[in-house]
């Protein structure tokens, strides 16, 4: 069996995306998000007393804004939980897991904004300048309530649901402030992030059980119940029972090689059924047994694969950037890890038969090493720019400088770029002059520091390169 056949059979490579698939991966996910948010608003508009009666006065308008932001914010909250799932079908909708996580961040952030507006507008609707004391009613609506002896079952339910909403709101605000603005060690951050699911559960109680416009319209009510279940289901699946139900492949560390530049290469062999992956993809790695190395166990971290899918082992290149990656320097042989994946749409195999430019910066070279090791004679032609700060940071030179240019003569051109020996950073002009062709004819892959990817994309676009032909792997989002 030839190598190309293995690509087609094993990894789904060698296909051409249909226009529907292209549309789905580019816009599918966001279309679903927008429609999901608009649906409850449309239903609510048709609910008695009708859209025209909801904006008759300033007070009613404030109430309407408060209700709409509450519904949309809740749906976005549920969606952000769904987007925290690492599932292949999400990658199909968002063009890779990194973009799924980007959507997770955006929906979570916008949800927070909407849910901040929700109580504010519902409170200020009470305020009228003709009756200044009405601000007390507004303040009262923002505070939790206690039961009294005269409360009926209905009012007890309302009080409980209102208080659940207030606690959920405060919890969400505190947790997202921690998430967005406080620099915590990864494991502490992860621990706090898990409580967002609890806040969502309370928000769901608030949404479903508080007598409101939602409960008055059965279709709307069931719609919100559905999102409550979807959101809670996603949270339970990912966070509470993920270790049990999500398939992870056990691997054992065979070798740890220090590559220089604070980088180690971890070589691992499967202890059972191996994972399947495309060149350029990444995995989530969770160490189970690491001896006395001090490496945090039971913490999943994303890493790009440097090996080719045709090799029996999986190799990961890791640069010491955080606490966890620094500790990997001491990783002992024989350590056991679980691998979940692979993920990502950053692969040359998605564009077979097309000329490609690869730009790797620093540790961002890793997915290109995987792609390079998987190349065969069907390759259409590749220019590989490998940018580092110092010459000693270049690795795998035997493969890149000698083996591939020799075996794939005329199809693989290697261009190392050592910044300290040049007058500046690698830029689009250098790439264009080196390639000597119209850059618009190439699919361009870039992986490296975020600022490098952002700058190069802007420079390439300024030279008329279409945005859709520029592919980046956003490591910062993982």
């Amino acid at each position, binding site marked *: 069996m030839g190598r190309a056949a293995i690509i087609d059979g094993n990894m789904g490579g060698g296909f051409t995306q249909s226009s529907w698939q292209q549309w789905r991966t580019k816009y599918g996910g966001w279309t679903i998000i927008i429609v999901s948010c608009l649906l409850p608003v449309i239903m609510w508009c048709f609910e008695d007393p009708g859209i025209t009666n*909801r904006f008759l006065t300033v007070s009613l308008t404030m109430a309407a804004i408060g209700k709409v932001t509450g519904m949309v914010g809740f749906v976005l909250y549920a969606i952000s939980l769904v987007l925290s799932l690492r599932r292949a079908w999400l990658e199909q909708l968002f063009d890779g897991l990194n973009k799924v996580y980007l959507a997770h961040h955006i929906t979570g952030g916008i949800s927070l904004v909407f849910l901040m*507006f929700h109580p504010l507008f519902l409170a200020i609707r009470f305020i009228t300048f003709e009756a200044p*004391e009405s601000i007390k009613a507004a*303040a009262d609506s923002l505070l939790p309530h206690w039961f009294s002896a*005269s409360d009926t079952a209905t009012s007890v339910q309302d009080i409980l649901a209102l208080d659940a909403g207030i606690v959920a709101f405060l919890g969400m605000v505190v947790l997202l402030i921690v998430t*967005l603005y406080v620099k915590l060690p990864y494991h502490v951050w992860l621990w706090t992030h898990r409580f967002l699911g609890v806040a969502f559960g309370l928000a769901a109680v608030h949404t479903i059980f508080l007598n409101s416009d939602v409960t008055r319209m059965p279709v709307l009510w069931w719609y919100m119940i559905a999102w409550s279940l979807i959101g809670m289901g996603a949270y339970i699946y990912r966070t509470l029972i993920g270790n049990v139900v999500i398939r992870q492949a056990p691997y054992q560390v065979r070798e740890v090689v220090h590559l220089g530049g604070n980088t180690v290469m971890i070589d691992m062999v499967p202890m059972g059924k191996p994972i399947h992956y495309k060149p350029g993809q990444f995995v989530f790695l969770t160490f189970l047994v690491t001896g006395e190395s001090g490496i945090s166990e039971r913490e999943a971290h994303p890493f790009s694969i440097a090996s080719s899918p045709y090799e029996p082992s999986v190799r990961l290149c890791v640069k010491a950037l955080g606490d966890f990656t620094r500790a990997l320097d001491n990783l002992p042989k024989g350590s056991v890890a679980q691998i979940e994946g692979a993920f990502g749409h950053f692969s040359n195999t998605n564009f077979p038969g097309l000329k490609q430019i690869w730009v790797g910066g620093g540790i961002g070279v890793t997915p290109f090493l995987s792609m390079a090791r998987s190349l065969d004679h069907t390759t259409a032609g590749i220019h590989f720019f490998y940018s580092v700060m110092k010459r000693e940071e270049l690795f795998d030179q035997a493969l890149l400088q000698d083996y591939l240019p020799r075996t794939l003569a005329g199809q693989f051109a290697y261009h190392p770029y050592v910044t300290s020996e040049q007058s500046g950073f690698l830029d689009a002009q250098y790439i264009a002059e080196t390639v000597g062709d119209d850059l618009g004819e190439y699919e361009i892959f870039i992986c490296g520091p975020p600022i490098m990817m952002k700058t190069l994309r802007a420079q390439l676009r300024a030279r008329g390169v279409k945005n859709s032909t520029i592919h980046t792997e956003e490591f910062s989002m993982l």
Partner: protein
Amino acid sequence: MKLKHVIAGIMIVTGGAMLAVLLIGAFASPAQLAQIASRFTGQAATPTVQTVYDEDGNVIENATVKHNADGTNTVITGDGTVATQVPTSNGAASPTPSGPSGTTVTTKPAPAPSTTPRPSATAVPSTTPKSSQVPTPTPSATPKPSPSPVPAPTYCSGNTPCYGAADLAGHASTSNCWSYNKGVMFNLSGYASRHPAGTDTVLATNTCGRDMSTVLSGSTKVNGRSHNHSSSVENNGSNGMSSFKVGYYDSAKP
């Protein structure tokens, strides 16, 4: 600008607004609230159309009374002249002359509002103020014999705007629903969509155009169910219905 910076800005603004509402609502006195409101409305106090009598019991027409934050009333004649100040007596009228200048403040029902009634009515400026009826600081050497005062009938304990049974009857349908509780009139058509139990519960035929006090206390059922409410709601305290107060109700008013 990054998304997280935009979110931070919105969080600070919305969080600050909520905190302001909570603090002002918790600590500001009614007088301070009136002052805060006046900064937005541009009025020192809420003007009210009232009937003002001079010490002889004559009506001072087109006079406007402002309730000041310090508890006094300022009487302004139709041409804008400040005529006198009298201590307020809870906004209600006294049938006999009182106060340092002998001026009596008596409320007069304001005209019924058309579509969106407000709790307070506005003053109607006079084009030809009757100077003879405006009390002056210079006392008369020989006071003329005063006619016997003709006290205007007082409804709603002098609170305005005041509505009677005829007014209420005009709002007795579910599409135009007013109802009163312990002398306070509410526009339930505006409020209904906010009621936690639903629009149908509020716009019920045994509520519109009627006394809702027994509905609020739970002794009268609506749509087959009785609904208990907090004492604040039962006694017209601050609640979701407060902003839909349209005035006062007096069954004696024609």
